[in-house]
């Protein structure tokens, strides 16, 4: 085999690998959680008896449900121990550090999701729970930005969180760090 032929074959092999690794989603990747399922169509004794109406969940909304909802809640607002997303998380995207930080939070960084799916999940989550707090010229996360942010692991998450929030106060995005309080201690943000 000649050298040029070998390199051509290698190029074909690696471009194929790159396509499969990106795991790009179908066009409807925004997902939906607003469609509902007719209880009569669900073969389950209790759903039918109680008339429980379930949402149909797909795409990024499904990834949120599987990876985040258990603790953050389906409304983006849960117990005091879990930082609230609703009406708040979008503020982090006003600074470069904040954009990186919400990717680097341990359970986001380590989620069993590809960079492309994680980007779609973050964009969906930000618009769903905190659309009003996003900057006017909000740039959605791309696969590349998520991949880059994921290469950096935070030392102390709590310390980094404070730095990022103090930065948002300095930028004038928020007037006080109290907005970001979580846990039962009002000094913790």
């Amino acid at each position: 085999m000649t050298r040029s032929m070998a390199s051509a074959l290698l190029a074909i092999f690696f471009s194929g690998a790159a396509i499969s690794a990106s795991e790009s989603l179908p066009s409807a990747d925004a997902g939906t959680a607003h469609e509902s399922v007719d209880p009569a169509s669900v073969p389950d004794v209790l759903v039918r008896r109680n008339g429980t109406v379930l949402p149909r969940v797909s795409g990024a909304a499904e990834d949120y449900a599987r990876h985040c909802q258990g603790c953050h809640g389906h409304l983006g607002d849960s117990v005091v121990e879990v930082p609230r997303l609703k009406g708040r998380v979008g503020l982090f995207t006003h600074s470069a550090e904040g954009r990186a930080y919400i990717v680097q939070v341990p359970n986001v960084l380590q989620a069993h999701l590809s960079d492309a799916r994680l980007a779609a999940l973050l964009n969906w989550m930000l618009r769903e729970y905190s659309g009003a707090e996003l900057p006017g010229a909000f740039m959605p996360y791309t696969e590349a930005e998520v991949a880059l942010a994921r290469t950096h692991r935070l030392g102390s998450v709590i310390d980094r969180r404070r730095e990022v929030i103090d930065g948002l106060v300095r930028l004038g995005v928020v007037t006080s760090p109290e907005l970001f309080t979580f846990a039962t201690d009002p000094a913790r943000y």
Partner: protein
Amino acid sequence: MVMQVIDKLFERMSRRTAQKMSRRNFVATLGAALAGASMLPVLPVARKAQAAEDPGVEWAKRVGAQTTDPKACNYWRYCSSDGYLCSCCGGGPATCPPGSTPSPTSWVGSCLNPDDGKMYLIAYRDCCGKDSCAQCNCLGTAGEMPTYRPQLNNDIIWCFGGSSMVYHCSSAAIVGQV
């Protein structure tokens, strides 16, 4: 350049075949190869690869999941439930028995409904604040992760954020259709 090399290769192969084999033999071999290729998907290796796709589907088939009796371990929603069924403790698969309270946090998995063949998202939410119920102990492990991935593990007690960390029983609420 590449085409020339491929051309040469095939020419050499077909000449060699023509010299070595009778025509009848060639047709027989080709026929056997085609028939053999169609058999490949039913070999156990291929079937195992398909079954490995979703642990919830595998569980439903293995236990013969059903949709009518929430007091049995093979009720379809329990594919990842580890513990005492709230249905056997005075509650239901999505309601806590009197005296216990639902944990505000849970982990979300998915199970196959055997009657419509669809996947549903299930929130595994413990009922807390009362001594262990100790009725109907079931162990489903579909999609479960080791304890170092606690957000998808069912060995730990899911009472975080509630007023009490005392475990009573396990509930399994449907939270959506996939």
